[in-house]
């Protein structure tokens, strides 16, 4: 590209400044000052503006001192006449000239999005309104997740325990499989893996809303709002970003702490991240929420998420005052992008990536855990009562630890131990224990065609029910009739015999807070070493036990038991 200059062009700086420029150029000639590679006019302007770089260069030139003195006189003369620094006056003229050219040559509307962003931010990042708004958003999201997904959860439950289980039974009959193989497939794999896969619709909807919040730009505002509270625990808003990621899965959230400069801040953030309720805990909340709290399930689940944040704040304060005293706070620069309409493609990708990871885990970790669980529930070989199995005996031995918390039975103790592998396994273990022995049930015989029609009809009904529930969110619209409310899953029914609403709440609190899953501990060990991984496991389990005890015993004293 060739750059051409129009030698005839001369920006007019106004008569008074132009006169000083002309005087200085004349002086260059008079005192035989060679401007070298600089044009006389450009150098005169720069000298009048007292440009530091040019002054240094000119000082070294012949007669440079004299020229600088003359320029200084000229600049002072202009200032006395115009009442302002000459560099501001010349800049003013240049900006004005540029502005004129832009106006004449470019027509574009001002971006109103900035205005809208400012207006929204005035509310959502407000000193006092910001935090309630954040919690209100989370509340609405979790109500929507539960209410809208519940018809689909029922549908998935019916499909897995109906047509899919029937298909396995048919194949097992076809191959004349022995009784133990039937038990392994139906009681182990279908009950265990199927018990977790039931929650895929709920996760899809959760990730849909999280993607909406992220892509719209609200998540950065949430970090901004939380910055104030993070400072209470000696951290800043940057630490809240891994915590928000922790709502999805704690493992990437732990690795996301790498963006924090200070090691102390990274360690503290990693210790607090597992207290954010990850999506693996959602199946546990949903099962218990629907079984014990009905229409208030969404509120209970929201309360779990809020409790996780509150406990994280308190734990942070304790760490800050004890083993992780604050060092110099590093800078936190947060970009608040303008609000945008989320792109459907991006939202769908987000939903797919996260949910497929959950399904993949169901096909690997949860499948293996279900097989091991089935084996432990059936050893020593020929055991008739699950309580007498190896698993039952070990679980029975640790169950008394949970007795003060209201769930001191061996089934729950065992489910919590297996939940260490992955939190979803709490549900799959309970499914295996409570729904095992399903072979004894009378299974209605259906044809493949009937099953497929049933699946299709069920899906349409679930879609219609969810649509009605979604529309009922609009004030004044109530399309969700009583019939469309969620049906109980088989597991929910079984749990009602073993828990009360109070002990169920204490159990949910314990699941929320107790030892992070093995993958999360692995990530903490990888990033910070074994001692911090052990610290995380021990302190979280201790905190979980204490808080669950307070919930159960406190509730009991208040007559809620």
């Amino acid at each position: 590209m060739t750059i051409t200059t129009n030698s005839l062009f001369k920006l007019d700086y106004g008569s008074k400044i132009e006169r000083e420029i002309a005087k200085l150029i004349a002086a260059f000639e008079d005192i035989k000052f060679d401007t070298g590679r600089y044009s006389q006019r450009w150098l005169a302007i720069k000298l009048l503006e007292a440009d530091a770089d040019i002054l240094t260069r000119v000082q070294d030139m012949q007669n440079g001192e004299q020229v600088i003195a003359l320029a200084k006189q000229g600049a002072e003369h202009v200032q006395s006449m115009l009442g302002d620094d000459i560099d501001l006056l010349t800049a003013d003229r240049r900006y004005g000239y540029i502005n004129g050219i832009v106006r004449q040559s470019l027509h574009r509307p001002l971006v109103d999005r900035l205005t809208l962003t400012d207006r929204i931010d005035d509310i959502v990042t407000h000193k006092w309104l910001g935090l309630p708004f954040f919690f209100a958003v989370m509340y609405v999201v979790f109500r929507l997740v539960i209410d809208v997904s519940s018809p689909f959860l029922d549908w998935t439950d019916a499909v897995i325990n109906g047509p899919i289980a029937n298909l396995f039974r048919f194949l097992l009959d076809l191959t004349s499989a022995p009784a133990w193989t039937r038990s392994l497939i139906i009681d182990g794999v279908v009950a265990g893996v199927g018990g977790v896969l039931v929650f895929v619709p709920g996760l899809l909807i959760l990730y849909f809303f999280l993607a909406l919040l992220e892509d719209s730009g609200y998540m950065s505002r949430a970090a901004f709002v939380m910055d104030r509270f993070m400072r209470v625990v000696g951290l800043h808003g940057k630490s809240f970003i891994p915590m928000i990621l922790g709502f999805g899965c704690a493992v990437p959230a732990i690795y996301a702490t790498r963006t924090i400069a200070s090691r102390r801040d990274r360690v503290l953030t990693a210790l607090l991240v597992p207290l954010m309720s990850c999506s693996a805990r959602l199946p546990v909340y949903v099962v218990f929420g629907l079984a014990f709290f009905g229409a208030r399930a969404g509120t209970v689940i929201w309360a779990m998420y809020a409790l996780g944040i509150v406990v994280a704040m308190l734990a942070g304060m304790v760490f800050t005052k004890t083993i992780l005293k604050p060092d110099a706070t590093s800078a936190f620069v947060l970009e608040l992008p303008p609000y945008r309409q989320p792109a459907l493609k991006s939202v769908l990708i987000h939903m797919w990536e996260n949910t497929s990871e959950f399904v993949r885990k169901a096909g690997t970790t949860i499948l293996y855990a279900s097989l091991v669980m089935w084996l432990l529930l059936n050893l020593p070989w020929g055991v008739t009562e699950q309580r007498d199995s190896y698993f039952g005996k070990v679980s029975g031995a640790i169950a008394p630890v949970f007795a003060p918390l209201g769930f001191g039975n061996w089934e729950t103790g065992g489910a919590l131990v297996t939940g260490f592998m992955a939190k979803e396994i709490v549900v799959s273990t309970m499914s295996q224990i409570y729904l095992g022995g399903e072979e004894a049930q009378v299974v209605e015989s259906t044809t493949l065609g009937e099953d497929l029609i049933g699946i299709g009809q069920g899906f349409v009904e679930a879609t219609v029910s969810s649509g009605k529930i979604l529309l009922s969110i609009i004030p004044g619209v109530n399309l969700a009739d009583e019939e469309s409310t969620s049906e109980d899953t088989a597991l929910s029914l079984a749990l009602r015999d073993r828990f009360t609403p109070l002990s169920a709440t204490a159990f949910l609190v314990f699941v929320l807070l107790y030892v992070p899953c093995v993958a999360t501990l692995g990530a903490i060990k990888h990033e910070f070493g074994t001692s911090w991984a052990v610290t995380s496991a021990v302190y979280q389990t201790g905190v979980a036990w204490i808080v669950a005890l307070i919930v159960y015993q406190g509730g009991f004293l208040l007559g809620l038991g």
Partner: protein
Amino acid sequence: MGWDDVMLTQLVKLLEDKENGLSLSEISREMKAQPSAILSMIDLLVKKGRILEIGPDNKCCATCGIQSECNLLAARRKRYVVVV
């Protein structure tokens, strides 16, 4: 508006009338120019000591209250007032 508009003077005059100052986006709207163009003018005027950067409520930032160390202020709602 012609090519010889005096933008800096216009900007200072605009701020003189606003007791609580204006944010970049507000200045940009008032002057009908893109924020990126306004920002370099603001930088020059701040450097020359003609205008001052302040927090959103004239005193402090909405979060920590420590204006001198406030990094968030750089990201949002910085306002500008004329130095009297």
